[in-house]
């Protein structure tokens, strides 16, 4: 396989690509007019825009396979897209690529309560899964804030989390199987209604692969019985240090709350101004801790957590006594992004994770960077697992401010890695953090990752330009030692 299709660098003209797509799909499955294409020009990372060559909306796995087979044979690039809410530019189109949109494949294929799984098409919205099973007392645990819109396929690709993932895990811990179409059009099934796979855990590689390894056309997820009750505490602290010590003490005290969120002063004020649910305004940090389970368990834990808060000098403590009150505690947190969005014309959401004990120090340094760059910042924090969302405030209409915001963001992520954390806790690398990958990984580390890409898509046609800072040719990466004129694995295609 010295020359793959991608190396034949004469991709067909646009007209030919559109015509071929029309042969495969019904008329409304191909979007090629300027106005129609513009609605796909960016995802949740709106600073990046690019109109795709053509957008296609298949309805079946067979159509997905036919599209990929055709594109593969002719060296045409493909970018998958679910609902387009990626915050890292994962679904950013390519000028010379087909945008493959999964939004028409949104059926629930099976709900198996006896085995507690649901089989879904990838385009279904995350929240629709819970809605489909809640009458039977079940729910789908990963709950990204975008859950009304974002698709399960996108969740799989980004390995998305939510406020409840501290206790219930992120997407990868809740997915048991996928059907996947490879770039060459071959369809494979990985996993299923089983709690364990044999062989290499390819399913584990697919989750979080940001659309670079294959198109997910079916997903089997675990559904869980809903906890009997949930209670929340709303806790104010005079210092970030007190709040982080509280979080550490809860966890080392043996309690894993269903969710534990923190906001800093600017975020608290913005949220309160937006939704007005009585957040205390004279504190530096606000923590929402949610506990779930049988009523007695909640009561027991509420008491323990309130006591830990007291020992850590909480200056205000409220405990929810009704479902309505619990939801009102969350209202401000859930609206934190749009609330902060009102403070400035634009905001830029970062997503690093840090070891929790470095929080106070990291927030201090972010504050210092904030004055250095002359841009405001508000911090929202998945406190239980150390996932930090600094929201950088800027005005894209002022020349140079977007660039400054991006540099500020990059500095924050470098800081996260410096203290032992990572570039992204749940939003993915995409185009956004691609060039920062060497901050966290050596070239050797990245080569080992990219060879996985080569195993699935040796011609690098699927979502190129995402995740990897430099796309090295697979032939170069795959070089092997030849000993005694004999290759190991002689039956394996070399790339």
């Amino acid at each position, binding site marked *: 396989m010295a020359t793959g299709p991608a190396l034949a660098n004469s991709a067909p003209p646009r007209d030919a690509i559109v015509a071929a797509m029309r042969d495969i799909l019904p008329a409304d499955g191909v979007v090629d007019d300027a106005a129609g294409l513009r609605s796909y020009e960016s995802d949740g990372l709106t600073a990046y825009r690019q109109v795709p060559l053509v957008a296609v909306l298949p309805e079946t796995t067979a159509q997905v396979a036919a599209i990929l087979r055709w594109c593969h044979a002719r060296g045409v690039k493909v970018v998958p897209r679910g609902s387009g809410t990626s915050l890292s530019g994962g679904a950013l189109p390519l000028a010379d690529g087909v945008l493959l949109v999964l939004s028409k494949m949104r059926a629930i294929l099976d709900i198996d309560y006896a085995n507690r799984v649901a089989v879904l098409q990838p385009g279904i919205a995350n929240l629709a899964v819970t809605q489909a099973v809640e009458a039977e007392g079940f729910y789908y645990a990963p709950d990204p804030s975008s859950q009304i819109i974002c698709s399960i396929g996108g969740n799989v690709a980004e390995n998305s989390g939510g406020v409840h993932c501290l206790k219930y895990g992120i997407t990868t811990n809740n997915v048991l199987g996928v059907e996947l179409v490879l770039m060459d059009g071959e369809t*494979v099934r990985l996993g299923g209604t089983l709690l364990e796979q044999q062989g290499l855990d390819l399913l584990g*590689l697919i989750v979080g692969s940001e659309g670079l390894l294959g198109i997910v056309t079916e997903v089997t997820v675990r559904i869980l019985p809903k906890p009997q009750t949930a209670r929340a505490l709303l806790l104010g602290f005079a210092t970030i240090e007190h709040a982080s010590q509280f979080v550490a003490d809860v966890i080392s005290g043996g309690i894993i709350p269903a969710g534990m969120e923190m906001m800093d002063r600017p975020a608290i004020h913005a949220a309160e101004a937006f939704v007005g649910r009585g957040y205390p305004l004279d504190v530096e940090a606000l923590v929402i801790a949610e506990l779930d389970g049988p009523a007695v368990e909640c009561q027991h834990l509420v008491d323990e957590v309130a006591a830990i808060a007291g020992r850590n000098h909480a200056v205000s403590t409220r405990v929810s006594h009704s479902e309505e009150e619990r939801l009102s505690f969350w209202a401000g947190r859930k609206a934190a992004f749009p609330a902060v969005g009102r403070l400035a014309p634009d905001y830029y959401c970062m997503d690093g994770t840090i070891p929790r004990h470095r929080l106070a120090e990291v927030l201090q340094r972010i504050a210092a960077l904030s004055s250095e760059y002359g841009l405001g910042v508000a911090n929202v924090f998945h406190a239980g697992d150390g996932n930090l969302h600094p929201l950088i405030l800027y005005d894209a209409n002022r020349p140079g401010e977007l660039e400054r915001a991006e540099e500020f963001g990059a500095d924050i992520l470098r800081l996260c890695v410096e203290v032992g954390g990572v570039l992204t806790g749940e939003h993915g690398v995409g185009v956004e953090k691609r060039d920062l990958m060497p901050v966290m990984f050596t070239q050797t580390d990245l080569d080992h990752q990219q060879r996985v890409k080569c195993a699935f898509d040796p011609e690098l046609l699927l979502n190129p330009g995402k995740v990897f800072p430099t796309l090295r040719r697979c032939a170069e990466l795959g070089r092997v030692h030849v000993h005694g004129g004999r290759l190991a694995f002689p039956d394996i295609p070399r790339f």
Partner: protein
Amino acid sequence: METERLQRAIADAGREGRRLEIRGGGSKRAIGAPRDDAAILDTSACRGILAYDPAELVVTVGAGTPLVEVEQLLADNGQMLAFEPFDHGPIFGEPEGKATIGGVVAAGVSGSRRLSAGAARDHLLGFRAISGRGEAFVGGAKVVKNVTGYDLPKVMAGSWGRLALLTELSLKVLPAPRERASLMLEGLTDAEAIGTLSRALGGDCDIAAAAHFPQGTARADAVTLMRLEGFGPSVEARLAALTQDYGGAVLRGEEERALWEKLKTLEPLADGALLWRIVVPPSLGWRVPKGLDGFARRWLYDWGGGLIWLTASDPEAPVRRVAESVGGHAMLVRAAPDVRTFVDTFHPEAPAVAALSRRVAAGFDPAGVFASARFAGGADAH
């Protein structure tokens, strides 16, 4: 230092076309086809606790650290490996204590709590390793939430040493439950037991583990167990709710632990030479022994019916065909050496998946240093 020595050993083997078999404590060495084409690469030099802060829920350890050492450290701090790993020694008639943390993770060993808390793969956050190229590399990280780059820890967990030598692991740890107790039902048939467990697992009692011991395995009568864990008042409330729905007796303390221990040592299956590990959709578990009819000798169910440990009377028993007929797969765990040479350890994969796995493996280990006759099929076919 140590890593460099191991790197050189692996690189040399690659250049010279030799094969290496990675060995931790050797507690699972009797799994797979007997082989003599590989030199042993011992992980015992990679031993020790490298970092541990209970409040961060992460422990970083050398791959060669004995499992018992890691578990002791965590227990001293009121924490645990929630996937409930165990030592394979007793399954092969050897004492416990040999298994290393690297071996447990590389073999994807998850115990009864896998049902509710996830498997070994769900708890491996990051690693350092040396690939078949003789190159040191890392995957994942040392924090509990991370999606930076491909999730290589997933593919390393359960890879049985076929991609790279793990030298260092960062594992997610969780608080150990303060209380635990089990509800025991007696005298149910397999189908009744699995049906009951399915129903109970669909309820809101947050069952940590669910197992069934058919008649004459744990006790003379069949025993069905549902384990509850957590805070005292919560365990009691859930026990009361379950008892109201299903009756049964509450077990605690040593008596309770001893029963669950049998799913780790597999003592009730000790006398069967041929031991299979079968994973199926939980609600269909009971069909497997039935489908095997006279070939099945004794069996135990874990994971609410989703995992069956079964001894068979005959190497020709159609275990794989029956497992497949309900959508599952079967691994041969224990058998005489001659049987292991002609029966593959792992269930054959679909050809396209097997080809993909081989390509992924070749990326880490192009010269096949870690490929071995031990596991025919799958990533190792050569």
